[in-house]
């Protein structure tokens, strides 16, 4: 089972929930940080890193001697990463999405695969399981190609069995969708504030068409208003856990502690959450209706 912990709004508690679930998990678990623009799960799980590898994207390299400036590559590229200007072929590697189309259509074989560094993938162990993270290179704008390589590694590491939990990036754009699209269950972490509710609805709209079971964790419960509860009731979205709005939790988080370890009550909250996630993942459990 792969569960993705996502949210619309940032700062609602994705990493807090991911780290706490990881510590109460039963059986082998791989904890994965797919928030590659600002990974922070390691701050809570303190993994021992055992290996790392650079992640590269294939971008075109030009052999000017062979180019006839026919423009086939530039016509194909939707991202303006390659451009014919008169008797010049210009490339903009930072704009390239790495589809390889230009290499395929060049009739003169004037383009060859070069590489742009996307970032780094590293892996290792925590006290209780495996750990995997990606980190986007400073200045790099495209995270989905790096995320796909982290997910390839995830599948390799999961081939021996066990579960994985993914700490997803916030938002509802390509990176967030990339993080949840291969999961079996999506856990949406939100807070009952006007901003929290607004972005929660966006996340629900973005992810519901994927047709995966979804559950909700309400963090900072007791703050704000009841709109989230009413919305979840109307949509049939189960609220699997509530984490109280409590100074003790904020202090523990700020010290880098895992909140499931703060009190027996919080530990029970996460043990119960885990069991409800397992129920949600069972085949036959009513899924969110596709809403396309």
């Amino acid at each position, binding site marked *: 089972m792969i569960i993705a912990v996502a949210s619309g709004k940032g700062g609602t508690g994705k990493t807090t929930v991911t780290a706490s679930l990881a510590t109460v998990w039963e059986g082998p678990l791989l904890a994965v940080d797919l928030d590659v623009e600002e990974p922070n799960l390691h701050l809570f799980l303190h993994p021992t890193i055992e290996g790392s590898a650079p992640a590269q994207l294939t971008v075109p390299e030009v052999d000017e001697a062979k180019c006839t400036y026919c423009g086939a590559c530039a016509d194909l590229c939707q*991202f*303006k*990463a390659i*451009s*014919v*200007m*008169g008797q*010049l072929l*210009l490339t*903009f590697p930072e*704009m390239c999405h790495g589809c390889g189309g230009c290499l395929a259509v060049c009739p003169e074989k004037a383009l060859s695969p070069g590489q742009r560094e996307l970032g780094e993938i590293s892996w290792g162990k925590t006290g209780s399981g495996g750990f995997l993270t990606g980190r986007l290179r400073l200045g790099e704008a495209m995270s989905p190609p790096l995320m796909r390589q982290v997910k390839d590694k995830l599948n390799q590491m999961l081939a021996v069995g066990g579960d994985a939990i993914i700490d997803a990036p916030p938002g509802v754009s390509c990176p967030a969708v990339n993080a949840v699209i291969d999961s079996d269950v999506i856990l949406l972490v939100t807070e009952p504030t006007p901003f929290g509710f607004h972005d929660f609805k966006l996340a629900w709209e973005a992810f519901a068409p994927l047709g995966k079971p979804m559950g909700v964790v309400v963090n900072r419960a007791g703050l704000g208003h009841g709109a989230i509860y009413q919305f979840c009731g109307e949509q049939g979205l189960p609220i699997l856990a509530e984490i109280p709005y409590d100074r003790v939790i904020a202090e523990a988080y700020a010290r880098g502690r895992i909140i499931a370890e703060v009190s027996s009550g919080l530990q029970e909250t996460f043990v119960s959450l885990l069991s409800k996630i397992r129920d949600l993942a069972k085949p036959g459990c009513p899924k969110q209706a596709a809403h396309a």
Partner: protein
Amino acid sequence: MHKIAITSEGPSLDDQIDPRFGRAAGFVVVELETMATQYIDNGQSQVMAQGAGIQAAELIARAGVSCLLTGYVGPKAFKALAAVGIKVGQNLEGLTVRQAVERFQSGHVEMAQAANREAGH
């Protein structure tokens, strides 16, 4: 024949300069000897998710201009323009196309050595 392109909000010499290059509404191409004009619509670049500056550079390069007058140019567009030898006069927002051409002809437009905007704006 000496042609220059000016980013413009409309097709005539009396339209305002569009301060943006890549996402300009269009380009007025002026033949300096005769002041004859031609208008190139840039609507397609305006709706691109990325690469508008590069596409705009392709458009004016195809029109055969030797110089561009505009408000501001990003780094990728600047690289593309420099590669084909199109000179760039920047920071001309607030003028009409005609005023910009006159200032250029009187020698009061300095040619830029670098882009004056970050990418993507």
